[in-house]
C-alpha cells in the first residue's frame, strides 16, 4: 500500500504561523507523502509564502504541492514557489515527480488547473478575447497536466490540482459558479493516465468524495470540507498481494 496524506486551502498568514504545524505530529507515522492542493496562503504574498515554507518544512515525509488562485493574488507566486523549494518542498505546475515509497513507486503530477466548467456546460473558446483567454488558460494547464501524468514512470499515478476535475465534489456549491470551480479536462487527464486518485481543493462548500467518468476516485481535501488536519488515503499497488 501507498499511504497519501492530503490537504488544501489552509490559507496561512502570519497570524496562523505554527498552528497547523502543531497538528502534524503523527504525519510521518500515518503517511508516505503529504500533498498540498493549493491556496496555501491567504493573499499570495511572499511573506505568507514564508509562513507556508516554515509550516511544511521537515515534517518527516516528502511534501508535494501545487499553488491555488489565492497564491497568485499578489503576483508573487514565483517567490512563494522559490521559498517553498528552498525548504525542500516540491512545487509542481504541469510537471510530475516520482517517489520510492515502502509500498511501491508513487508518481504525482500536479497543476493549479483552472475553471472552464464541466462536460455539456463548459465555456467554449469563442467570442471576446477575454473569454477566449480564460478558456485557453484552462486548456493549456490541463494539457500540460495530462502530459505530465501519462509520462509518470510509477506503480501508482496520482493527480494533484487546486481546481476540481469533477462536479461530484462541488455538491453544496451554487451551480452558477461551477464554471469557476473546475474543468472536466482535468478529469479527462486522470482517466487517460489511468490514475489511481485525483486530489483537489478550492471548493470549500463542496464534499470530499467523487469520481471521474472513467472511475478514478477524486477527493476534495479543502480544509473546510475535511474538518480534520489532512485526508488519509491508502492505495493498493497493482500486483501487490
Amino acid at each position, binding site marked *: *500500500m501507498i*499511504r497519501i*496524506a492530503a490537504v488544501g486551502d489552509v*490559507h496561512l498568514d502570519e*497570524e*496562523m504561523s505554527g*498552528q497547523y504545524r502543531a*497538528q502534524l505530529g*503523527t504525519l510521518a507515522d*500515518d503517511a508516505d507523502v503529504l500533498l498540498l492542493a493549493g491556496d496555501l496562503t*491567504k*493573499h499570495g504574498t511572499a511573506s505568507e509564502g514564508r509562513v507556508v515554507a516554515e509550516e511544511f518544512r521537515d515534517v518527516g515525509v516528502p511534501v508535494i504541492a501545487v499553488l491555488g488562485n*489565492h497564491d497568485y*493574488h499578489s503576483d508573487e507566486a514565483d517567490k512563494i514557489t522559490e521559498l517553498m523549494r528552498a525548504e525542500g518542498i516540491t512545487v509542481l505546475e504541469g510537471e510530475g515527480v516520482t517517489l520510492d515509497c515502502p509500498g511501491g513507486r508513487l508518481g504525482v503530477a500536479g497543476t493549479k488547473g483552472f475553471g472552464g466548467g464541466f462536460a455539456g456546460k463548459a465555456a467554449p473558446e469563442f467570442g471576446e478575447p477575454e473569454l477566449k483567454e480564460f478558456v485557453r488558460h484552462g486548456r493549456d494547464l490541463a494539457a500540460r497536466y495530462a502530459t505530465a501524468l501519462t509520462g509518470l514512470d510509477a506503480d501508482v499515478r496520482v493527480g494533484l490540482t487546486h481546481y476540481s476535475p469533477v462536479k461530484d465534489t462541488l455538491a453544496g456549491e451554487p451551480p452558477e459558479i461551477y464554471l469557476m470551480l473546475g474543468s472536466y479536462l482535468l478529469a479527462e487527464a486522470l482517466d487517460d493516465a489511468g490514475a*489511481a*486518485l485525483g486530489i483537489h481543493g478550492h471548493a*470549500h*462548500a463542496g464534499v470530499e468524495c467523487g469520481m471521474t467518468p472513467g472511475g478514478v*476516485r477524486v477527493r476534495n481535501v479543502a*480544509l*473546510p470540507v*475535511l*474538518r*480534520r*488536519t*489532512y*485526508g*488519509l*488515503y*491508502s*492505495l*493498493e499497488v497493482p500486483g501487490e498481494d
Partner: protein
Amino acid sequence: MSAQEPQYLATHLREALAADPRTAEMGVRVRVHGDDVYLSGEVACAERRERILQVARELVPDRRVHDELSIAHVGGRPEEERLS
C-alpha cells in the same frame, strides 16, 4: 456604501469583504434585513473574525452588523480511508 435594495447591498458587501486586503474572505455570507446586516460562515481564527466585523462596520456605518460567524476547529488524528 449607500442605502440600496438589500440584495444589492448584501452582494456588494460580500464582494468588498473578499476584495479588501484586510479580510480577503470569500466564505462570508451576508444577509440584510432593514437596518440589520447579518454575517455568517466559518473563519480560521478569532483575529480574522474581528477584522471582518471591523471592516463590515466601516463599510456600512449606518447599519447594525450582527456577528453570526464561527471559528473552524480542526484537529485530531485523521482516520485512513482504504481505496481498493
